C-alpha cells in the first residue's frame, strides 16, 4: 500500500529526524560548520527559517545566540560535546538524561514502563533499535525517529495516530525534561534546542493543519 505523502508531512518528519540526530550524537566540527552564519550553513538557514515563525521565534533565537557564543570559544565542537555529555550522557545529578522512564516512573529507574511501551510499539511495527545505538527504547531520539516514520507511514490518512503518539509518549514527559535541562550548569545550546523541540511538538500536536505548512 503506498500512501501519498504530502510535502508538509515530509517536512515534519524531517524536522523530527533532525531533532533526533541532534539529541543522539554530538556534532562534529564539520557538522558544526553547517550552523555558522557565514558562510551561511544549511543548519543555520534552517534555524533562521524557524526563527521567522512567531511561534518559535524566541526559542530558535536562543539556539542561535547559544551557537554564536559557542563559536567564539577556542574549541567550539569540544565545548558542544562536553555540553552534550553533561546534559544527555551523565546522570540526573549533573544533567538531564533523555529517558522517559526517569521522569515518569515512581522508582526513578531506567528501563521502566515507558521503555516497555515503546519496545512493544516497535515490536508491533517489526522494528528494532540499531545495534550501534544501544539505548533503551524510551530514549528521546528513538521516540522522535519513530515519530518521523509514523508521520510518513500514516501521513494524512490517520493523523490521529501521530497525535496519540505525541500525547502518550512525548508530551507526558518532555516538559519535565526541558525544565530539568534548563537547570544544568554551563550549558546553552542543548537546553535551548530542547525548548525549541518542545514548542515545535506542542504546536504540531495542537494544529489540525500541521505547523510545518507555514515554513
Amino acid at each position, binding site marked *: 500500500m503506498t500512501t501519498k505523502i504530502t510535502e508538509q508531512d515530509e517536512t515534519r518528519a524531517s524536522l523530527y529526524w533532525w531533532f533526533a540526530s541532534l539529541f543522539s550524537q554530538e556534532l562534529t566540527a564539520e557538522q558544526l560548520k553547517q550552523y555558522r552564519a557565514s558562510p551561511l550553513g544549511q543548519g543555520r538557514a534552517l534555524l533562521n527559517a524557524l526563527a521567522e515563525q512567531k511561534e518559535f521565534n524566541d526559542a530558535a533565537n536562543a539556539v542561535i545566540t547559544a551557537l554564536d557564543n559557542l563559536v567564539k570559544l577556542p574549541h567550539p565542537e569540544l565545548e558542544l560535546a562536553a555540553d552534550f555529555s553533561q546534559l544527555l550522557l551523565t*546522570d540526573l*545529578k549533573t544533567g538531564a538524561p533523555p529517558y522517559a522512564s*526517569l521522569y515518569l516512573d515512581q522508582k526513578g529507574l531506567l528501563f521502566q514502563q515507558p521503555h516497555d511501551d515503546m519496545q512493544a510499539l516497535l515490536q508491533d511495527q517489526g522494528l528494532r533499535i540499531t545495534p550501534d545505538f544501544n539505548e533503551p527504547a524510551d530514549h528521546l531520539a528513538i521516540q522522535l525517529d519513530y515519530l518521523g*516514520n509514523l508521520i510518513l507511514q500514516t501521513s494524512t490518512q490517520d493523523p490521529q495516530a501521530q497525535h496519540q503518539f505525541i500525547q502518550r509518549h512525548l508530551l507526558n514527559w518532555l516538559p519535565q525534561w526541558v525544565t530539568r535541562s534548563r537547570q544544568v550548569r554551563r550549558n546553552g545550546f542543548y537546553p535551548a534546542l530542547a525548548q525549541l523541540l518542545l514548542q515545535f511538538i506542542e504546536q504540531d500536536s495542537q494544529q489540525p493543519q500541521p505547523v510545518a505548512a507555514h515554513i
Partner: protein
Amino acid sequence: MTISRRSFLKGIAATSAAGLIGPSLLQQAVAAASESPGQWQVSGSHWGAFRARVYAGKVQEIKPFEADSYPTEMLKGIKGIIYSPSRIRYPMVRYDWFLKRHQSDTKQRGDNRFIRVTWDQAIDMFYQELERVQTQYGPWALHTGQTGWRQTGQVHSCGNHMERAIAMHGYSVKKVGDYSTGAGQTIMPYVLGSTEVYAQGTSWPLILKHSKTIVLWGSDLVKNLQVGWNCETHEAYEYLEQLKEKVAKKQIRVISVDPVRTKTQKYLNCEQQYVNPQTDVPFMLGIAHTLYSEKLHDENFLKTYALGFEDFIPYVMGKSKDKVEKTPEWAESICGIAADDIREFARLLAKQRTQIIFGWCVQRQQHGEQPYWMGAVIAAMLGQIGLPGGGISYAHHYSSIGVPSTGAAGPGGFPRNPDNPDDRIHKNNDFKGYSSTIPVARWVDAIIEPGKKINANGATITLPDLKMMVFSGCNPWHHHQDRNRMKQAFQKLETVVSVDFTWTATCRFADIVLPACTQWERNDIDLYGSYSSRGIIAMHKLVDPLFQSKTDFDIFTLLAKRFGKDKAYTQGKGEMEWVKQLYDECAQANKGKFEMPDFATFWQQGWVDFGKGENWTRQADFREDPEINALGTPSGFIEIFSRKIDRYGYDDCQGHPMWFEKAERSHGGPGSDKHPIWLQSCHPDKRLHSQMCDSEAFRATYTVQGREPLYMNPKDAAQRGIKDGDLVRVFNQRGQLLAGAVVSDDYAPGVARLQEGAWYGPESEAIGALDTYGDPNTLTMDIGTSQLAQATSANTCLVEIEKYQGDAPAVTAFGGPVEIS
C-alpha cells in the same frame, strides 16, 4: 513499518540539507519468536543468592534463593543497581584532560565536564598514559593497589583484572592492609598469631551449647551478617534465632558493650553495657584490675600459654612509669561506667564460660590496636581461650564466620598476577628510594607529602610521589577519610582512571571513566556461603551489558592488546572457558570429599550444595598442644607483652596495651568543648559500604528528605531545636554536610551516627563545599591509628549539629528524582 529517510525540508529551502540528519536509529527486525513469560535464573551477590525472572531482555523480578532461609531485604535493591540512572553509559574523558592530557587544570576535577569517546580512543589514552608515566617517571609514580569490594564472581573479580593487565605492562606502587580492619590485622599477629579479623571463629552451635555469657563488644551481628564477601547464605541467622530463645529463657546472658542500642541488641532483646565512645581500653583496664586484685585470673593458663603478663600487670597496678593505678574508679572517670559496675562486670566474665565477640568498629579509631590487644589480654586472664564457647573472637559478624564450615574448596579466581612476573613491557623496577608498598590508607598523604618518611609496622616507608592512579571497582571517595583533603590531593595527580558501572564520586573526580557492566550482565561462578563454604553457585548472565558497558575481562583484554599481551592476558580463553576451568579445578580439589557434577549439569542446575559443615573451636588445637600447634606470634605463645613492638620504640603503640588519649574525644575529652558530639560512621544497615546507595527506590526507604539519616539522641536534638525529620547541617573544622535527623533513644547523649557508604555529593568541586547528601567522611579525620598499623581512624571524629536554615540545595550525589526548587 518501513523505515524511510527522505530528502529534507523541500518546502523551505532550495539547498539540500541531507547532511543535517544522521543515520536512522531504527531498522527492520526479523520477527521475533514470541517469548515465554520469562525464566527464573539463578545468580548471586554479596547480598545473597537469588532467582531473577528475565523477560524481553529485562530483569523483571527478583526473589530470594530457595535455600536461603533468612534473605536480606536488600535484594530489593538489585534491580535498582542494574537500571540505575547513575549507570555509566559510555567511555568518558574529562574535558580539560581531553584537551591537555596530563597538563590539564586539575582544579576542574569534579566539575562534571566530560567528553564522550569511543572505546578505542579511551583505551588508547589509558595505554598512552601508562606508557608516559612508566617512561617519564617510573613505577613509583603509578599507584594501582587501591581496591574495594568488587562485585561478586571469581572470573570477573575486577581488581584481579586491573592489576594483572597493568602488571603485564609494568610495575606500580601497591598497598598493604585494608580500610575495614587495618589496625586489627596488624596488631593481632603479634598477640594471637593471626590476623583474627579474617579467621574462622568458634562454631555457633558450640557457643550456644557452652557459653553462659556472651559479650558483644561493639559488634552488630544482625546488621552486618546481611552481606558477605562471596555469595551470602545467611545461615548464621538460624543460630541468632536460637540465641534469642536462649536469652528469653535466661539460659545465656548476652551483653552488648556499645554506646548505641544496636540492631542485634534489639533483636535479641539482650542487655546493654553503655560505654563512652573510644574509651573501651580504660573499661578493660578496670576489668583487668578487678580480675587481678580479686585473683579471678587464671594463673595456670597465663603461665602455660602466654608471655609477658608480669611485664604488663605493673602498668595496671600503678607500678610502671606513669604511676597511675588503673582502678575501676580511675576507669569510671573516663569510660562513664560506675566503678562497682565494672567490678560486677569483671566478676561476671570470670564466673562462667564467657565468649567475647569483638566487632571491627573499635579498631577503626585512633590507637585502634589497643582495644583489640587489651581484649586478648582479658581473654587470656580469663583462661578460656581454646574452650568451646569461651575465649575471644574478632569476626563473628563477618561473612558467615561461625557457621560450621564444610571445608570444601571453592572456585579459585582469574589470576591477579602475570603468569610470568618478569615478562613485562617495562622492566624498570626501580622505585628511586620510594617504597613500593604503602599502608592502604596513606596514599593521600603520599600525594600531599611525597618523599616523607613514616613508620609503619616496624619499617620505614618513604611515601612515593604518585602521578597517576587507576581504580577499578573501587570508590575511595566513599571509603577514605576527609574529603576536602582528598580534593586538595587530587589536584596534584596528573591522571586518574576509574573503571566502574556507576557514577561514583571517584568517577566524577577521574579523568578517564570506563563503563564496566554489572555482575548480572556477565557469566561467572562463586562460592556460596563465604566462610562456611556451603556450595558453589552459577552466576548466569541475566541481560547483555547495557549501553556501551563491557565486562572487566573485555576491558582489560583490550588494554593488554595495546601492548601485544592480550593472548597472554586471557591465556587464550574466553569468559565461559574460564568459568568452566574454575569449576573443573574446584571439582578436582574436592574429589573424594565432595562429589560435584560435570560442568554442564552444574550450570544448568545453578548450584552445588556441600551440606552442613562441622563444628570447630578456635584455638582448641593450641590449647591442647601449645608446642606443636604454636601460635603465629614471635614466641608461639599469646603475647601480652610484645618485645618486638616495644623495640620499635613507638610512642603511640608500646610493648603492651595501654590507654592513650585521642586527638578528639567526646564526653569531656579533647575537642569536645568545640564540637561536643561523637560521630560514628559504622557499616550501613541497608547497603554494602557504598554499593546500592545508588539504588533509587530502595534508598528512598530510609532517607530523610532525600538525605542520609543522621541518628541522634533526643536531648541533644532538643537542645539544638532539632525535630525528627528535620534537615540538619553537621560540621566540624574539616567539612560540612546536610543530613536528615532521626531522633532516637537508641543513641546516647553525645553520640550520633551517619552510616559510611553514603555517596558524596558536594555542591561544587571547590574545597569546603557543602556535601548535599551526608557522606560522613566529609567530616572524619585522615590520620593513621598509630605508627604500627597506620590504619584508618574514621571513628575518632567530633562534630556539631545544627538545624539547617534556608533553602536546601538539591542532592547532587546521584541521578536521584528530579528536585526542582
